């Protein structure tokens, strides 16, 4: 032992190369050591949920920062870094994510994008919400303005995912969760969307409730366009169900005697009350126009187009509103079609016969009251009569063979007179028209079939 002390006096020269070794070792090993420690610290935090995690290694000391979502999580994260072998000191710069009170999350939709805002409990929930938003909205841009906060109510993710499904059904609007209260506002994209959202809200997770549901339904729109060139009537928009759709198509077929009815209607819930009672008379008014458009939007009826003559325009403007159920509004923008060039007697007869070949003037059964469905045809007869001011016209009433001759004779006379009165009311001089009833004496078809009888019940216009 004594020798060891003696010899150690002579050990010092080796310190010089040792110092050189030390310098080289320190010089070359520091960066790899730091990166190795950083990698192993990061690996140790693999299963820890932290926001804004940062790890800085200086020598063997690790400065570790991040936002934790619970106190246990925070401590656990620090402990896992401390446990990494080789780490000398851990400078703990972690903190807790701020708590949101109340915990508010929102999804707002405008024309081009959906903005997710407010608070989200964990990065994983945030990712899940964004992914769900992108999936349910197709190509719509999703903007993420969510920040992370503590204090989310239980089952928040499920509630938010359910509500994100609903945002796809909105045209614009906002859905908000404030603690456990859900508020919705905006406009549904389609008819029925509002109802679908209300139904879906029943599936909100336990504990959540709807504080306000102010989703509005889009306007319930039906449009009818009468095209005089294509000779079509195009119906578009919504109807409450297939029965109403069939009724509208039938009414259109009766009122538009020469037009082909193109039915593009779709069934949807959400129709205003009295829908069919308003649309059918409005179609009647449209049938009296030369060309025109009917737009029924919720409880507002807008009719625009050209009437065939002045009196018709006045009748439509003043008369239609009365037919509507209560609470409905009517706006008419009716002008009068310029009068066509006059024609001679032969052409006049031809035009009148063509009209009556396409459609028949209808009356109530057994009576001389003109069916309102025939207004369109009568207006065309008036228009044609206006084009031949110099001729006199005989209005001939005919009936089928059913019933007594005396009754049929009287009925045919009254019906012919009713038509003559309509023409006079339209502004034609009474002297040009003679109403004559022929009863069943001049059939054009057999009275043995219903079809033949229907052809025999007719009004003819004969130019004299």
């Amino acid at each position: 032992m004594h020798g060891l002390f003696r010899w150690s006096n002579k050990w010092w020269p080796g310190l010089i190369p040792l110092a050189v070794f030390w310098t080289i070792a320190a010089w070359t090993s520091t960066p790899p050591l730091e990166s190795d420690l950083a990698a192993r610290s990061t690996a140790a935090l693999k299963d820890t949920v932290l926001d804004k995690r940062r790890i800085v290694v200086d020598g063997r000391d690790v400065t570790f920062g991040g936002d934790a979502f619970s106190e246990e999580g925070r401590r656990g994260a620090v402990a896992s870094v401390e446990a990494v072998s080789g780490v000398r000191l851990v400078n703990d710069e972690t903190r807790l994510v701020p708590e949101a009170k109340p915990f508010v999350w929102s999804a707002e939709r405008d024309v081009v994008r959906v903005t997710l805002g407010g608070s989200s409990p964990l990065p994983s929930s945030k990712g899940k919400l964004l992914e769900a938003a992108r999936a349910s909205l197709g190509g719509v841009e999703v903007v993420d303005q969510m920040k992370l906060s503590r204090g989310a109510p239980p089952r928040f993710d499920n509630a938010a995912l359910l509500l994100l499904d609903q945002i796809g059904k909105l045209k614009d609007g906002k859905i908000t969760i404030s603690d456990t209260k859900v508020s919705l506002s905006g406009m549904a994209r389609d008819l029925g969307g509002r109802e679908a959202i209300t139904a879906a809200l029943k599936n909100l997770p336990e504990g959540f409730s709807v504080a306000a549901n102010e989703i509005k339904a889009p306007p319930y729109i039906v449009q009818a366009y009468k095209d005089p060139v294509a000779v079509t009537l195009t119906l578009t928009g919504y109807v409450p169900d297939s029965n109403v759709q069939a009724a509208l198509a039938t009414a259109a077929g009766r009122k538009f005697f020469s037009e082909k009815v193109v039915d593009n209607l779709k069934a949807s819930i959400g129709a205003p009350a009295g829908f069919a009672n308003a649309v059918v008379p409005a179609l009647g008014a449209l049938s009296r126009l030369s060309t025109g458009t009917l737009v029924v939007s919720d409880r507002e009826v807008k009719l625009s187009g050209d009437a065939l003559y002045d009196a018709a325009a006045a009748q439509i403007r003043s008369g239609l509103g009365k037919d509507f159920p209560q609470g409905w509004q009517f706006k008419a923008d009716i002008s009068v079609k310029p009068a066509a060039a006059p024609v001679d007697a032969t052409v006049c007869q031809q035009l009148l016969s063509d009209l009556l070949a396409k459609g028949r003037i209808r009356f109530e059964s057994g009576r001389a009251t003109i069916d309102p469905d025939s207004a369109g045809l009568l207006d065309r007869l008036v228009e044609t009569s206006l084009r031949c001011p110099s001729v006199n016209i005989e209005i001939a009433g005919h009936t089928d063979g059913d019933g007594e001759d005396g009754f049929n004779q009287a009925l045919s006379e009254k019906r012919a007179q009713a038509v003559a009165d309509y023409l006079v009311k339209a502004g034609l001089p009474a002297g040009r028209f003679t109403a004559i009833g022929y009863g069943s004496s001049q059939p054009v078809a057999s009275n043995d079939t219903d079809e033949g009888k229907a052809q025999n019940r007719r009004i003819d216009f004969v130019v004299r």
Partner: protein
Amino acid sequence: MAYLVMFHWGWLLASLLLGLAMGWIAVVHRGPGVSRLTAWWLSGLVAVLVAVALARLIPGRPGYWLDLGLLMFACYLVGCAVGSWLRHRVLSRHAPAA
């Protein structure tokens, strides 16, 4: 410590070998030694450095360099002691024969 040994075993081995060589030479070296007073001073300095390292008083890279230096120094001392002892044994075996 174990981590440092594993990470720097090459340098530590070099220090040990250097110590062995120095210890081997020291037994028969005729040059000037360190005076008793200087030795005490040096021991005190090393003790202070060890205390500082154990207390982790120096942060960051300098702290790491200190640890590394002390570890290499310890290896060197062990090498010196073993080297000197081996040389002494070799010499004392030869001495009686001579």
